[in-house]
């Protein structure tokens, strides 16, 4: 498997063997490799602030001995003056070996990859894709369950606008898993995804009642209901408190259920669950560094 020079833009770009290889390298990256990317420079081009993603990438690069430059708010760059993504990338590639781009504009990362002669990693493009989140989710599932095959996975919250859920479901469909989509009707998983998953042989179930299915689940993936994704603020008000998990959940689950969340949360999971053995969301976030280390090393052809 050779990832050298490849771009990491969308869940659609991966085969199952790609995913397995990334997971394998990510595991190796749990070890310290302080010289692996010595002399390499990562450019982090953040057209919107995302402290979490940026710090995770920067930490990954530093831990591999590389250096980082970039910006994290388009106000400080000439982008506000009308410079295009294309031109910004053409500039940045002169100063770096690999680029991470984050933008609220969907498709920016794909365009950046077409502009750049060096590898581009998508750090999130609006409501479209966030492949490093998807990969760290996959890595977390594999790590805590020691397998993916055969798992019963529940997705809870905003499944309509929630890109992390959409991407993760597509990635998981390479394995024989069972999926439970738990959301109010208005926020359910889009029908075209369900159709695609079923065509791949995935058993899909829809419900609005978490307690109806929670007893069956191995993983419960909870997402935030994001205000900014709603076209109508009144719609958001209607659903923002649709689910609030607390310790009453514990009477309705298997002993080894693990609860995941891409963070930040805004009340979907009560802090009283944090100290239970079910909560893995902080560990999940920490896994982001190993996965991003793996991706940086892979696209630079230095994973060995």
């Amino acid at each position, binding site marked *: 498997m050779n990832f050298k020079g490849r771009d990491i833009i969308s869940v659609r770009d991966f085969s199952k063997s790609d995913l397995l290889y990334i997971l394998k390298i990510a595991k190796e990256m749990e070890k310290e490799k302080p010289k692996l990317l010595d002399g390499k420079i990562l450019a982090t081009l953040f057209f919107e602030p995302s402290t979490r993603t940026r710090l995770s990438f920067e930490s990954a690069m530093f831990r591999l001995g590389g250096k980082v430059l970039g910006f994290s708010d388009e106000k400080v760059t000439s982008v506000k003056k009308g410079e295009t993504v294309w031109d910004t990338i053409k500039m940045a590639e002169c100063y770096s070996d690999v680029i991470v781009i984050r933008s609220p*504009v*969907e*498709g920016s990362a*794909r*365009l950046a990859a077409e502009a750049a002669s060096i590898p581009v990693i998508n750090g999130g*493009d609006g*409501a*479209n*894709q966030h492949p490093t989140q998807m990969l760290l989710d996959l890595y977390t599932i594999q790590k805590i369950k020691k397998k993916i095959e055969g798992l019963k996975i529940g997705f809870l919250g905003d499944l309509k606008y929630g890109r992390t859920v959409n991407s993760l479901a597509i990635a998981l469909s390479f394995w024989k898993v069972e999926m439970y989509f738990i959301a109010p009707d208005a926020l359910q998983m889009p029908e075209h995804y369900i159709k695609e998953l079923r065509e791949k042989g995935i058993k899909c179930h829809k419900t609005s009642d978490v307690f109806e299915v929670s007893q069956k689940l191995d993983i419960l993936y909870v997402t935030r209901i994001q205000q900014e994704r709603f076209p109508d603020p009144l719609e958001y008000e209607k659903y923002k408190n649709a689910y609030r998990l607390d310790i009453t959940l514990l009477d309705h689950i298997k002993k080894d259920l693990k609860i995941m969340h891409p963070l930040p949360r805004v009340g979907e999971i009560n802090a009283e669950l944090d100290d239970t053995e079910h909560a893995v969301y902080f560990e999940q976030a920490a896994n982001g560094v190993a996965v991003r280390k793996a991706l940086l090393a892979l696209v630079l052809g230095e994973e060995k």
Partner: protein
Amino acid sequence: MKERRIPAIKDGTVIDHLPSRDTFRIIRILNPQEFKHPINLALNLNSKKIGSKGVIKIDSRFLTQSEVNKIAILAPNATVSIIKNYKTTEKIQVKLPEELVGVLNCTNPVCITSKEVIISKFKVLREKPLEVKCHYCERVYGKDEVEIKGK
């Protein structure tokens, strides 16, 4: 005797078996304002194959393969005949390419194609019924949602 609703043409192109309801959209794709010769159009004709059909006859103009491909977006069952001296000399197969470059607009307001000057690119996921995906924002559009570029 065969009923003839539109006069026969001596030289030109006949596009047949168009869904009636999409015929106006189809003629628009071909930028008819650029044509110098007569264009005849008939709607709501009976068709055994598709129920209600439309026919377009373009005088003295031979459609190219790429123009024919655009028709395929809305009318995958269309037949296109090149007429020379009242006789069909060629039937062009309507075939949707795997990728539609510079043909459709992405109507997603937060898509990069609506912010920067880029040639649009769509991948054809399904032909019948039509389903295309924007190469950039990955939004999927059905037949009634696609916006075909006008001139």
